[in-house]
């Protein structure tokens, strides 16, 4: 059994490693899945006790099959645009699973709170799982565009109070020689508080901070798995949990860095004192028609497309790809430039473009092209805002100052596809729109693009 566990642990590490390499990612996923299967087989085999009846095994088999079928159906039925929601939902299920396991430990024979270390591990596991569960559910609802009650400072305060209460309860349990409450009650209470905490923590976070949040929730489930691994003395769970936790944490840090914000400021939900008011006045912006846009594009030799969340909202990725084809037929080179935090989860834009068949080779990360943006004749910004705002570089008073941006303003001509004059997530006014070389094509991204495409076809 030990050997099987060892093999599957190595498989997990190796699989995850492959997943970081575009050429071997798919194999990596398969390796990881196979390793888990292997460990599961070994785990089931060694968990069979004399008391285990056929009923148990049949029930287990049914559950495993049902879960696999459900997972398979969901993951293939969901549209690619709904990927962030699905990932959050799966994460929520994992978190809930951790909570149930923990509660079961006390009701069943497992831990009774007599050993301090294992009771702390158990409590933390349940708490992390609980926060990940409700947090992911809230994130799911947000990503799905459901109307949630507006949240602000009050919610953040409640979240802080809940956290303090949790710490106090935990200490009150650990410090006195004689625990104040029965362990089961304490655990249930803490679990409930953790569930509430998850809701209040995530409600005020939204918009461009979503990628950070999702990566963080993922890390939390990883930590819950790690703790469960300690509790069950299961090396595969332990290592798996650590890997997930490390991945989540790393992505969280990368995303925060891409926004030049600390994780704390994301969680605090506050973008440092956005100076309200100052919306761009309509007359300062030079609008452009679809026909003009088409002719600009048709004469360009080097064209860059900067997609943002707006492209995901109007599901314009297919139109973008169609336009790319037309432009290439006219002899232009088309590049896509993607900001690390564009969209609502890490790598969101890459998934959407891949779905629309956009070749991998034409997608460029921001760092690669930012120093020679001048060579682009036209930069088409589709539903992105803050990530192209030059205020991040030029205006030290701006709330997004210091955030790395795509220097679209350096291009010969910029056309921004925008629904209206709404500001970006940060609420900062976008200095790009006031520049001489920038014009704005108003309207839904998909509709506008379709008009441009029709015009291009006529050329």
């Amino acid at each position: 059994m030990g050997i099987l566990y060892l093999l599957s642990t190595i498989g997990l590490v190796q699989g995850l490693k492959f997943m970081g390499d575009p050429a071997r990612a798919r194999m990596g996923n398969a390796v990881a899945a196979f390793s888990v299967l292997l460990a599961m087989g070994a785990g089931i085999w060694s968990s069979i006790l004399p008391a285990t009846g056929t009923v148990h095994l049949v029930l287990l088999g049914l559950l495993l099959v049902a879960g696999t079928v459900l997972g398979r159906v969901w993951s293939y039925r969901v549209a690619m645009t709904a990927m962030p929601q699905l990932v959050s939902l799966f994460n929520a299920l994992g978190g809930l699973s951790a909570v149930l396991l923990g509660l079961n430990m006390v009701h069943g024979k497992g831990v009774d709170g007599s050993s301090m270390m294992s009771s702390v591990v158990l409590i933390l596991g349940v708490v992390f799982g609980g926060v990940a569960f409700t947090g992911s559910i809230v994130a799911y609802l947000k990503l799905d565009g459901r109307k949630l009650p507006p949240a602000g400072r009050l919610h953040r305060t409640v979240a802080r109070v809940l956290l303090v209460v949790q710490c106090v309860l935990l200490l009150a349990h650990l410090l006195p020689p004689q625990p104040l409450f029965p362990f089961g009650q304490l655990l249930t209470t803490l679990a409930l508080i953790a569930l509430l905490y998850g809701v209040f923590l995530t409600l005020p976070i939204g918009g461009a901070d979503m990628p950070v949040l999702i990566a963080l929730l993922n890390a939390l489930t990883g930590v819950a798995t790690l703790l469960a691994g300690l509790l069950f003395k299961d090396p595969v769970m332990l290592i798996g949990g650590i890997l997930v936790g490390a991945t989540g944490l790393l992505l969280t840090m990368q995303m925060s860095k891409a926004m030049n914000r600390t994780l704390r400021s994301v969680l605090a939900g506050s973008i440092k004192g956005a100076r309200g008011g100052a919306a761009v006045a309509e007359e300062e912006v030079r609008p452009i028609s679809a026909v003009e846009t088409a002719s600009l594009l048709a004469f360009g030799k080097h064209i860059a497309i900067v997609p943002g969340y707006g492209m995901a909202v109007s599901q314009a990725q297919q139109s973008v790809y169609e336009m790319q084809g037309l432009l290439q037929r006219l002899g232009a080179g088309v590049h896509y430039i993607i900001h690390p935090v564009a969209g609502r989860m890490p790598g969101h834009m890459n998934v959407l473009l891949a779905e629309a068949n956009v070749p991998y080779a034409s997608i460029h990360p921001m760092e690669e092209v930012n120093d020679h943006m001048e060579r682009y004749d036209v930069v088409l910004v589709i539903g992105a805002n803050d990530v192209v705002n030059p205020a991040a570089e030029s205006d030290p008073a701006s709330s997004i100052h210091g955030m790395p941006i795509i220097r679209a303003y350096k291009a010969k001509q910029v056309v921004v596809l925008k629904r209206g004059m709404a500001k970006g997530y940060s609420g900062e006014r976008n200095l790009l729109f006031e520049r001489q070389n920038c014009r704005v094509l108003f309207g839904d991204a998909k509709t506008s693009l379709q008009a441009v495409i029709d015009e291009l076809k006529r050329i």
Partner: protein
Amino acid sequence: MFDLHYQLTSIDGLFILALSLLLGFEVIKNVPAVLHTPLMSGSNAISGIILFGGITQLLGAAVGDILTIVLSSAAVLLGTINLAGGFFVTHRMLGMFRKTRHRDPRT
């Protein structure tokens, strides 16, 4: 056949924790942005192995212990959905990436 014992009190457990944490960071340090989403959903799938705990509980439960059976069954089911769904969805996503790579006539 050998037996692995993890005891949090022993320094060995902490060694394993610390080393595998470092390993985890090393393994995924330089992942390109294209793969962020698949990496996240793939690691999300791995966190579904928390269902192993549910399996242990379920198989160890006495036949009359309805509460344990119900709770652990739910944990197993949810964990399985997380696990299988996560791997399937990652597979599907990566399939799309591969498709775009092969169908690259220009640029």
